[in-house]
C-alpha cells in the first residue's frame, strides 16, 4: 500500500523511501524508536502531510490523487495534535461525524454507543480541555471511529490510557478486525504489539528494517529482544552506582 514514501524537512530526511504492504483485514503494528519516522509515515499515508516522493493507496485508491475518496475509507487518530477542545466530548464526536456528511440521527446513535463503549458516557458533557490525557486519547479514538471506516490508522492509541480502557479498546479493535476491518497502530510497547497484532514492521531512521507477520519478524525470540537487536543502542554501562540504596 505504501510505495517509496519519502519526506524531508530541510536538511533532515525524516522518512527515506518506505515500502509497506498492509494486507486488508490485518492488524498491523508499526514499531520503532523515538524519532524513527512513524508519525511522519502515518501522516503521509493518511493525507495529512504531502510526501516529497512516493505514493500511498488505500483499498486501491490513491491517497494523493483522490484524497476525498481515500479519506472516506480511513479513520485517523494522529499523535501530538490538538483537538477542538472547547467542545464537550459529545460535541466533538458529533462534530467529527457531521463533518463527514453523516445524517444527524445516525451520528447521535453512534456517538452514544461509542461513548458507552469507551467509558466516557459519564463525562460526555465535560469540555475536552478538562479531560485527562487518557480520556483525550479515547475521545479522539471515538472521533476516528464514528464514520465506520474500513481502515483505522492509530498513532500511539494506548499512551496514558488506563488498563481497563486499554483492554476495552483492544476488544473493540479485535472485533473490528474480525469483521473485516484493517487496523494500523504505532506503538512503543512491544509486548502489546506482539499480543495484539498479526503483522508488524520495524522502522528506524526512516527506513523499514523488517516487515511481515509478527511470528516471521520475531523468529522465535520475543518481539522486544528482536527489536533491540535490529535497532541497537542499548546502554550496558554500570552508571548510577550511587543510586543503589545498600
Amino acid at each position, binding site marked *: 500500500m505504501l510505495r517509496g514514501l519519502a519526506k524531508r524537512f530541510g536538511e533532515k530526511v525524516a522518512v527515506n523511501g518506505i515500502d509497506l504492504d498492509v494486507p486488508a483485514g490485518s492488524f498491523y503494528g508499526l514499531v520503532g524508536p523515538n524519532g524513527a519516522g512513524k508519525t511522519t509515515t502515518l501522516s503521509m499515508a493518511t493525507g495529512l502531510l504531502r510526501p516529497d516522493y512516493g505514493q500511498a493507496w488505500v483499498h486501491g485508491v490513491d491517497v494523493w490523487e483522490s484524497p476525498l475518496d481515500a479519506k472516506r475509507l480511513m479513520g485517523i487518530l494522529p499523535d501530538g495534535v490538538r483537538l477542538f477542545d*472547547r467542545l464537550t466530548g459529545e460535541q466533538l464526536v458529533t462534530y467529527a461525524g457531521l463533518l463527514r*456528511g453523516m445524517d444527524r440521527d445516525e451520528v447521535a446513535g453512534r456517538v452514544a454507543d461509542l461513548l458507552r463503549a469507551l467509558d466516557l458516557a459519564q463525562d460526555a458533557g465535560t469540555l475536552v480541555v478538562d479531560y485527562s490525557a487518557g480520556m483525550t486519547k479515547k475521545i479522539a479514538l471515538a472521533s476516528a471511529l464514528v464514520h465506520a471506516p474500513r481502515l483505522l490508522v492509530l498513532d500511539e492509541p494506548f499512551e496514558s490510557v488506563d488498563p481497563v480502557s486499554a483492554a476495552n479498546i483492544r476488544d473493540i479493535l479485535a472485533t473490528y478486525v474480525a469483521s473485516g476491518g484493517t487496523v494500523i497502530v504505532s506503538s512503543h510497547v512491544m509486548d502489546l504489539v506482539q499480543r495484539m497484532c498479526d503483522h508488524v514492521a520495524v522502522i528506524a531512521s526512516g527506513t523499514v528494517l523488517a516487515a511481515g507477520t509478527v511470528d516471521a519478524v520475531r523468529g522465535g525470540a520475543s518481539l522486544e529482544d528482536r527489536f533491540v537487536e535490529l535497532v541497537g543502542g542499548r546502554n550496558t554501562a554500570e552508571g548510577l552506582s550511587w543510586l543503589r540504596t545498600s
Partner: protein
Amino acid sequence: MVAHLLKLKLLLLRNSLRRSTWQLVGVVLGGLYGLGLLGLIVAGLIVLGTLDLDLMRTVVVLGGSAAVLGWLVIPLVASGVDMTLDPARFVTFAVPMRQLMAGLALGGVIGIPGIVTLIAFLTLTLTWIRYPAAAVAAIVCALCAVLLCIVGSRLITTAGTTLSSSRRFKDLSSTVAIIPLILLGPIFAGITAGFQNSPEFAGELADILSWTPLGVFVAVPADLAAGDALTAVARFCIGIGTIAGLAYLWHKSLSHALVTPPYNAVTRKGAGDLGLFARFPGTPTGAVAARAFTYWIRDPRYAASVIVVPLLPILLWFISRDSGDLSLLNYLGPITAFLLAWSISADISYDNTAFWLHLSAGISGTADRAGRVLALMVFALPAVLVFTIVPLWLSESLADLPMMLGLSLGALLTGAGFSSVLSARYTYNVPLPGESPFKTPPGTGFSMLAIQAIGWVVLMVLLLPEIALAIAYLVTGDAVLGWLTLLAGVVLGTAVLIGGVRLGGAWYDKRGPELLQAVSVNK
C-alpha cells in the same frame, strides 16, 4: 531561611538576565526607564516640599494611593507578572510559615518595581523636611506603605494561585481583562477632564482617599504637618489594622494553598446536551458553523473580540467627543462590520493543529469557509444592523440610513468574503488555544503586520464602489445615490462573499496539508 528565600529571588533575577542578550537589553532599558521615572518622582517630591501645604497633601495622597492601587491591581490583570516566588512552588518544601511569609514579603521588594516604590515612598521624608515631626513620621509611614503594597499583592497572588489553576477562571479573567484595556483611554480622559473642570475635584478625591487604606499612610505626615495629631493617629491605626488584616488573610490563604495542590475542579456532566450542534443544520457546513459559534462564546481568544463590540460605541464616543464632532459615531455600523469581518481572517491559525480533523474528514473547502462565515453572520449581522440604525436614529439623521446600511453591509459581506480567502492562504502566529488573547507569540512581528496592512488596503479597494457612492451621496445629498450605495453594498458584497468562499474553498482543497503543516510549526 528568610535569607535563603532572598538569595533564591536574587538568583532567579540574575539567571533570567543571563538567558538572552536581548532580554538583558530589555531589562537595562526597563531599569533606565525606572531610574528616569524615579529621578523625576524624587525631584518632583522635593520641589513639592516648597509648596503650599494643602496642595502638597493632595498630590502626595493621590500619588501614594495610585501606587498602592497599582500593586493591588496589576497582579489581578496580568496574572503571572511575578510568579518567581509562586507559593505553589513551595508546596513540596517544608518551610516554616512565618519564615516563608517574611521571605516572600522581603522578596517582593527585590526587583525594579519594589525598589522604585520603596525609594519613592522614602523620598516623602524630604518632601516634609520643613516639618520635622512629619518627616520622621514619613519614614515610618513609607515603610508601612511598602509593606501594605507587598502584603496586599502577595495576598492577591496567593489567592490567585488557587483560582488561576481553574481553567474556567483563567478563561473568564483573560476575556474580561480586555475591558479595562480598551477603556484605558476613556478612563484617563475622564479623570483628566474631572481635574480640568473643577479644581476642587482633586482635593475632594484626596480627602476621600486619605481615609481609605490606599491613602492613609501618605496622609499621616500631612496631618502632622498641619498639627492635627489626633487625625494622624486615627489614620495610622486604620493603616496598621489593614496590614494586620491582609497579613492574616494572606497567612490563611497561604497555608491553604500549601496543602492544596492546584486542582482543576471539573463538574462531570453526562451526555444529552449538544448545545449549538442541535440548532445549526446537520450538514458539514452547519457543523462547522456550530463549532465556530461555540468558539466565539467559549474560547477567550474569540470571546475577547465579541466583548469589544459593545465597547466600540463608548470608545468612538470618547474619540469624537474630544474633537467636538459627534458625526463619527454615525459610522459605528461600518466600522464594527469591518472589524468583525476581519476577525475571521486568521481562523485556521486559531484552530492550530486541531485543523487536522477537518483535513482528515475530507470536508470540502467551500463548506468549511461557508460554515465559518455563517457563524460570524449569526451575531455580526444583527449587531451591525443595530449599530448602523441606532446612532442615526439618535442623531435624527435617518435619511442617511440607505447610504450607511450600504456601507455597513458592504463592509461586512465583502470583508467576510475576503477573510475567507485570506485565512485559507496565509497563516500566522497567533495565541495558541488556551493561551491568553493578549499574548504576542514570538516571531509575530513583521510578516503578520505586512499581511494585515496589505489585507486592509485590498479590502478597502474592494469596498471602493460603496465608498465612492457614499461620498457622492454626501456631497450631492441626492437620495438616489444613497439607495444606490445600499444596492451596491448588498449586491457587490454578496458577490464578493460568494466568490471569496469559492476561491478560498478551492485554495483550501488544494493546500490543506500545507496549511496543517504551517500551523503546526506554531505549537
